[in-house]
């Protein structure tokens, strides 16, 4: 399907004193779920938004399947990459079905094909199509809204998925359920995914690999296990050992199990 490559990526916002993202290089392989982890303000969202060109580069290159994103048409590129944000941003004047159908309709799918896909996705995220299809977003719970946000992002079978703290605003129990579903969906669809969070536990539950960021730079790119065993910097060591290690190890194993079941 798809790979995403960052090569010396640097971003500076107009009027800013320093770079929001500075010389970042790493690769997100085909079908991989890579988590960008770091404290608020360290440049995770900015880096994510360079992929679908919502943020322009000051230097470096972002490639998707080897193609420089700046050489692609921005609108076409965005239609081929799913995007989920913490605030969800479901369109309030549209129904659930219309929200999910946005990208398929932008890409010119037929009415029948789109309707079939909408029902298929609603079932995939555990919402009964008959009950939810014609609802307005204002009548969804936080967890339901975020599920619909995910369905909307993957509706047109994107080649990659960008998720910016998607579960940050839902309560802990729903969050765990959503994380579990995401692992299942990503494994099922084999969609290359970049996932932003500042929540360590979430990162360890979801990630194939974790990119640890700190004030615009990458501290370490590694598998969760490796971050424990061979932290590259003092910062990473403090980060992974803050909180409950045992708990985190447990979830890493739980996740490996989930993956095994899905495959």
């Amino acid at each position, binding site marked *: 399907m798809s790979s995403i490559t960052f090569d010396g990526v640097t971003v500076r916002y107009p009027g800013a004193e320093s770079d929001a993202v500075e010389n970042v290089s790493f690769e997100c392989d085909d079908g991989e779920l890579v988590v960008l982890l770091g404290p608020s303000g360290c440049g995770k969202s900015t880096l994510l938004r360079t992929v679908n060109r919502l943020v322009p580069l000051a230097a470096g290159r972002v490639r998707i399947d080897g193609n420089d994103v700046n050489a692609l048409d921005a609108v076409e590129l965005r239609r081929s990459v799913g*995007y989920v944000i913490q605030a969800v941003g479901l369109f*309030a004047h549209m129904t659930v079905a219309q929200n999910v159908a946005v990208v398929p309709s932008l890409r010119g799918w037929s009415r029948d094909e789109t309707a079939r896909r909408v029902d298929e996705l609603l079932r995939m995220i555990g919402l009964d199509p008959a009950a939810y299809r014609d609802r307005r977003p204002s009548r969804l719970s936080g967890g339901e809204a975020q599920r619909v946000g995910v369905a909307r992002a993957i509706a047109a079978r994107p080649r990659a998925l960008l998720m910016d703290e998607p579960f940050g605003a839902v309560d802990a129990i729903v969050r765990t359920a959503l994380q579990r579903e995401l692992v299942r969906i990503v494994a099922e669809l084999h969609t290359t995914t970049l996932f932003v969070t500042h929540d360590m536990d979430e990162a360890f539950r979801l990630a194939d690999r974790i990119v640890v960021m700190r004030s615009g730079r990458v501290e370490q790119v590694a598998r969760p296990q490796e971050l424990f065993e061979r932290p590259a910097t003092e910062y990473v060591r403090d980060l992974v050992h803050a909180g409950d290690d045992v708990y985190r190890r447990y979830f890493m194993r739980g996740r490996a199990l989930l993956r095994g079941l899905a495959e």
Partner: protein
Amino acid sequence: MSYLASHPLRVATLLGGHVEIVAVALAVALLIAVPLGLFAARRPRLSPWLLGTLGAIYTIPSLALLAVLVRAFGLGFAPIFVALVVYAQFMLARNVVAGIAGVDPAQVDAARGLGMSPLQVLLRVEFPQALPVMIGGVRIAAIAMIAIATLGGYVGGVGLGVLIFNGLTLHQPQMIVAGSVTASALAVAVDALLRLVERRFATA
């Protein structure tokens, strides 16, 4: 009231003229104010200046503005029509700007991120979301225009103002009452109708 009872056709004809001039002026005003408002909404630095200018025009007393317009266009339909279009600009454009500014930024971010072109973001997300606020502007403008249009009886011989000004010259209080009461009733009816429309388009 007695004038209303004795001359229903005359009142109805003038009411028709009143509705007509307000409706046409409102339509023309919208054709100017909506693009103007959208333009201002896209340029946050410029928009206070634009709205400030329109607001200043709005505060010119209507009789003073009409005097200038009558000198420019002569008596008749034109000066009152232009006055209505000019006055409406502030209320309409302000609510277009406020409506667009009030759209949930997350929805706009999602729309862009999912691959809507700038025009699609405007037409499919921002415009529908801003619609209730814009209709609110139309409602306020329409009511003000109904009041201001009574001056058309003075400078143009159109609308319900004819009754008011003839009543004043002829010392016929019932004519004045008939004109004012009918204009007020029209304003109340239009207000109620547009409130319904506003609610129909409300999303959340």
